[in-house]
Structure formats: C-alpha cells, structure tokens
C-alpha cells in the first residue's frame, strides 16, 4: 500500500526528530534523569551491537560485557597516557575493541551454538579480572576517565550529567545511523544469508568465515563505544563495572528489544533503566522491606524476559507488525 520509498532523507529526518526529543528532554529533566538518559544511550549502543551480531549475523554472544571493558579501558588509558581529547579516546576505544573483536572473531567463527556461548561467557568472566593482575589497570578501584565539564558558555546550570546525556545521545545516534546503513548494505545482506542458511550462502559465493569475522569485528567496535560511554557516565573504569550480570543485562535488553530488529533498541534500553526504578518505588510503597527492594528488580526483569520469550519471541515490534498485517 505504501509504494513510497523510504530514502536516506526520511531516515535522516527521523534521526533529527529523535535528536530534537533528546534535546527537549535534556532541558526539562533534572540532573538525576539526565544521568538516566545517558545510561539509556549507553544501553542503546550496547544492545545495537548485540543485535547486529546475534540477530543479523547469527552468532551468540554472552560476553559483550568483556568487549565493553576493552572499550572502556582503552578510552581511559588513552586519556591518561596520551592526554588525548575525549572524542579521540572514543575513536581509539572503537578501533581497539574492533581489533580485539577481529582476533576473537577469527577464533569464534569456527565455533557455533553452545561452544560460542561458552567461550563468550568465559571471556565475560575472565577478561575484567585481569585488571587486578596488571597495575596499569588500577586494580579493584580502577582508573578514572574524565569526559570533562561542559563548556562554560553553556551557563552555570548546565550540569555534568546533562553534558553526558548530550554526548551519549549524539554518540548513540551516530552509531545507530551507521549500523542501520551497514545492515542494509552488501555486508548486512550477506550476514542474513549466512544466518538463514550457511550452505546456500556458501553456494551463492559468500565467504562464510570472513562474513562472520567481519560481523564480530564491527559488533565489537560498537561495543567498545558503549564501553567508553559507560566509563564516561561512571567517571571511572573498574573490573566490577563489567560483571557477568552486565553481559546478561545486555543480552536481556536485546531480547526485550527484539533481537532481529534494530528498530526496537530503545525499548530494551529504556526497560533496563526504568525497571529497577519502577521496582524499587513499588517495593517502597508496598512495604519498607529492603530485602524486597533489592530482589524485586531482578524478579521483574526476569519475569518480563520470560514473558517476552513466550509472547513475543521476535520482539515487541515484530509482534505488533504481525498483528497489524493479519
């Protein structure tokens, strides 16, 4: 029914609208909400990276937290040792993590299913812990990463978290723009071909190994950006910022967003930030029990996850669409 082609111009308008919404939001909300907004931006980038890898290229990762760690430490070390401006730190974080991902992906391309799940899981547990072994990483309390204070010309009331919100949102928008372009490119098509049928893809002349390694590399680069952004919101990089739970949260966010569609990425990101808050306010109202307040978020996220897996395994957006087209 719609024959109008969606062009890059339309998409650009879409992105500009989102940017406008973020801008307006950042001026309405208080410092605390700005901080949450910045966190949402981090999750958007991280989840997009998982969706690209798992949803489009068909490779499972339970260890994205480790890739975020690589990005975060690269950014912080670049700042500490090279005194580079923040945006260079971000770029270096992306490149370093992509390189790391290329090496890892070369090994991972030979693995599938549970083997890949196991390897990435072990990476998520193992990689952050080596920060304790080498003093350059600052041990348990970590090293600092200072994205700086907002320019004075923005006025005195411009808080640091609002600044983070801006930087995070801008980075997320750029990353998403780039990801959706790459998914619609030759590479994106080859990933989907490999995912749906390896044999057919091979017959069609696609180099399966190379296609998988490329997906791993790009996904890692984006994860590295998410890691650097996370370091920015925390002002700090420490091993404990990248527990197994972070990897699981990102995977959870991907499922809540719909792992096969990039468009839902906001849903999972907002859910990951909002649920703990909603849960704790429920717990507060319900009873003053601290025990309840600590366990309710986990319970709600878990229950939501199971519901999503059952009711909308392809994600809420696909669910909506399939209902519409009936």
């Amino acid at each position, binding site marked *: *029914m*719609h024959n*109008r*082609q*969606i062009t890059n111009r*339309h*998409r650009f308008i*879409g992105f500009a*609208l*989102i940017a406008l*919404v973020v801008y*307006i*939001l950042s001026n*309405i*909300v*208080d*410092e*605390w*909400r700005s*901080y*949450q*907004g910045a966190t*949402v931006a981090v999750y958007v980038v991280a989840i997009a990276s998982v969706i690209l890898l798992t949803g489009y290229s068909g490779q499972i990762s339970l260890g994205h937290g480790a890739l975020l760690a690589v990005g975060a430490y690269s950014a912080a070390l670049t700042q500490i040792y090279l005194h580079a401006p923040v945006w260079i730190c971000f770029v270096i974080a992306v490149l370093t993590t992509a390189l790391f991902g290329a090496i890892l992906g070369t090994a991972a391309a030979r693995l599938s299913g549970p083997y890949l799940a196991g390897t990435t899981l072990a990476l998520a547990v193992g990689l952050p*812990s080596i920060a*304790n072994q080498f003093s350059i990483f600052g*041990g*348990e*309390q*970590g090293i*600092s990463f200072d994205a700086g204070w907002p320019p004075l010309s923005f006025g005195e009331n411009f808080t640091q*978290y609002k600044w983070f919100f801006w930087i995070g949102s801008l980075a997320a928008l750029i990353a998403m723009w780039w990801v959706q372009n790459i998914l619609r490119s030759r590479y994106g098509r080859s990933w989907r071909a490999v995912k749906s049928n390896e044999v057919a893809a091979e017959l069609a002349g696609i180099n399966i190994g190379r296609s998988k390694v490329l997906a791993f590399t790009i996904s890692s680069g984006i994860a590295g950006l998410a890691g650097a952004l996370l370091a920015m919101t*925390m*002002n*700090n990089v*420490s091993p*404990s*910022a*990248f*527990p197994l739970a972070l990897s699981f949260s990102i995977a959870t966010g991907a499922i809540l967003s719909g792992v096969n*569609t*990039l*468009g*839902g*990425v*906001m*849903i999972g990101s*907002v859910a990951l930030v909002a649920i703990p*808050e909603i849960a704790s306010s429920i717990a507060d109202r319900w009873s003053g029990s*601290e025990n309840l307040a*600590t366990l309710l978020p986990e319970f709600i996220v878990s229950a939501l996850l199971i519901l999503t897996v059952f009711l909308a395994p392809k994600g809420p*957006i696909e669910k*909506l*669409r399939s209902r*519409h087209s009936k």
Partner: protein
Amino acid sequence: MIRTTRRKFLVASAVMAATALSLSVMPAQALSPRSEVGVTSTAIKLGITLPMTGSASYGYNQLPGAMKAYFDYVNANGGVNGRKISLVVKNDAYLPKQAIQNTQDLIGKDKVLAVIGALGTANNKAVASAVNLGRRGIPSLFINTGFSGFNDRKAYPTSSTILPSYIMEAKMIGKYVNETYPTKKTCLLYQDDDFGDDALVGFDKTHGNLDFAVKVAYPSLSQGVAGVPDSWITKFKAGGCEVQVVFGVASATLYTILAAAKAQYAPKWILGSVGADIGSINPATVPYIIGATSMSFMPSVVDPKDEYVAKFKEINTTYNSAGAKFNSWALIGMNTAFVAVQALKAAGKNPTRKSLLAAIDANGSKFANAGLVPLNYSKTSNVGFNGYWFGTFNKTGDLVPNDTFTYTPYTTDSGTGPVVKTTYTRPAMPAKGLPN
C-alpha cells in the same frame, strides 16, 4: 521490507515520545530549595552503601541494622531538634562500580543530606573520584575504612574516616609481634588492593618493621572460589609459618580459619580488626580462634561493666530486628549512629551540608562515644580513631582484653611516629544514651 522500516521508525519515535512524556511528568527538583537537600522540617535523610550480600558482606551487613536501631531510638525520644532520622541502605556487594551507582542514587534520587558509614577502601576510592563528592560539597562521613589515603584533607575535603588507618593497625601489629614473638617465623595474608597496600606500608622498615617469611595477596572476592583458601594455607604451611597475620575482610578471615582447620595448620593467629569477629558469623569457627590475638578500639561486646555497651545492647534488643546479634559490628554501627546524632545536633537548628561538616571539624574530637581511643576530627584532620587495645578471643569467641576487662589502649599516627600508650579518658555517656 520498505513498509517494515517505516513502521520501525514510527514505533521507535513513539517510544521516544512516550519516554519523553513519562520522564517529563516526574517532578523536577525544585530549583532553589529553601532548606538543605535531605532535610525537611520533620525529617533528616542519610544514606549508606555497603555490601549486604555476597562473599564480602559477612559481618558488615549488620552495620545498617544497628545504625537504624539507634536512629529509631533517638526518633522515639524526640529525634534531632524534632526531626526524625532515616537511613537509606544500598547494597553494593563490595563492587566499586555498584558503590558509585549507589552513591549517585543516594545523592540524585534519594536526595540524602550525607552519606554515612560507607564501607570499603576500593569502593570509597572509586566513589570519591567518580562522584566528585568534594567538588559537589557532599559529605561522606565516618567511612568504614582505614585507608590512610582518605586522610588527605585537600583531596577529600568532605570525607572523614572512622576506623584507625591500616597503617596504624599494621604498625601496632608489627610492634606487638616483634615484642611477643621476636624469633618466630611470621606470615601474612592480605587483600590485593589499597586496603592491603596500606597495611604493607605499615609493616615496612620505617613503620612497623615486621618481616614476613611468606606473604600471600588475595584479590578481592577471590576467597569465595573453591580451593582458593586451601591454596593460601598450603603456601603458609610450606613456608613453615609459626605466627600468622590475617589482614583481610571477615569472609577471607573466616575461610582462612576453616581451611587451616582442615589442613591442621595451627599457628599463633593474629587477626586484623577488620575481619576478626568471625565467631559471631559462623559459630563453627569459635573453637579454632580461642586464644587468637586481635585488636579493637571499642570496648569488648561482652564487657559487663561498660556503660555504653550496656545501653547499646539494650537498644539493640528493643529496636534492631528480632534475633539481631549484638556483636562487634553492631557495636560499631551503633556508635557511628551515636556520633552522627551529635554531629547533626552540633550542626545547628537547620543543619546544612556545610554546617554539618563545620560542626565535625569544630567539635568532632569531643563527641561522646564508646571508643577507648580518641577521635581526631579537626579543621586539619578527618582521621577518626587512632589506636587499639590488644586482646584474645575467649571460649565464646568474643574478643576480651583479659579476665578483668582492663584495657591498655595504644595510639599512633599514619606516619613514622611511635606507638604509645594513651592517657585518653572517654567522655561519660550522656543520660539515657541520648546526646543533648
């Protein structure tokens, strides 16, 4: 395919808009609050972040219960200038990242007046650098760590520690071991972060001057991994250790004692104050620690004649949750709350973050409290207690100085100053345990 992309955008934008709406209906904080953050005409809100679950939580997770019990007692007796004190407790599982997050929550979301009694060296270091407490003027009071780095007033203008520094503790252990066991082979278990590094300074040539035959550093939380404590003990046994210093958190101390029992390793134990009271966590360890040496700056929890202990015990029974033990952590928690109430009272009719910090600088060293060594708060110092008395664990696993409960406390500094017997006499307890 085309349709789907279009829809995706519609939905994505819809979600964005919905988020925007839901966020914007939340009331933004009033721009210029008349009273200080965390203070209303009827209430004062304080916050704490510490491990409530996980391997490092043993013992320390009893601090908030005791603190709340004392605050509730004060609230039941009129509060602080009519204001009731509440304590928001956040669990960081001893993870620096979570401590940062929690502190940001406490400040941004819960809007507390001050953070009080936060625990852990690495955690508080990460928080100090990440949350910029000093720059934002937010007090983090009576931090439960002995990391000497926090005593740099320029770097941490709004923080104060309550425990004696780990350098002080190590210096005292050094003196004690050198005098008591001059010829024995001594070994050390310590945590592989600033907590342990501080101790190493205290043990070095210029400070405590204690040499170790075997030193084992354990990474934080690794004590929970099967086989890890066994490997420590194997190393100590291979080194022929006769005196064993354990400078770790409570769970590490606990696991060390259990693993040593399994391997029938029975050195003379010297348990650092931070993790010594393991008998109250796991009664199975009591038989193994009888006679072990440790130290404290508080009176013994089983001291029958100490007025503070008696009153705090009574408050614990009435106001803490049912079955909450009165152990060393409960005593420390209650004492911290007791000191905090005096600080709030000293901060004036309408306390602010500034007046609270100023009150501690001006009067902190005179606050009544159970400690047997002085508090050292002043304009130039944010150091809490500065010394210890030595004692041994009795048959019930409680630390006592001797049968007659006569204490010989020593004090020192974090530099190279000597360890000396103190002549400090603590202020008498105010009537009913309520500071006026």
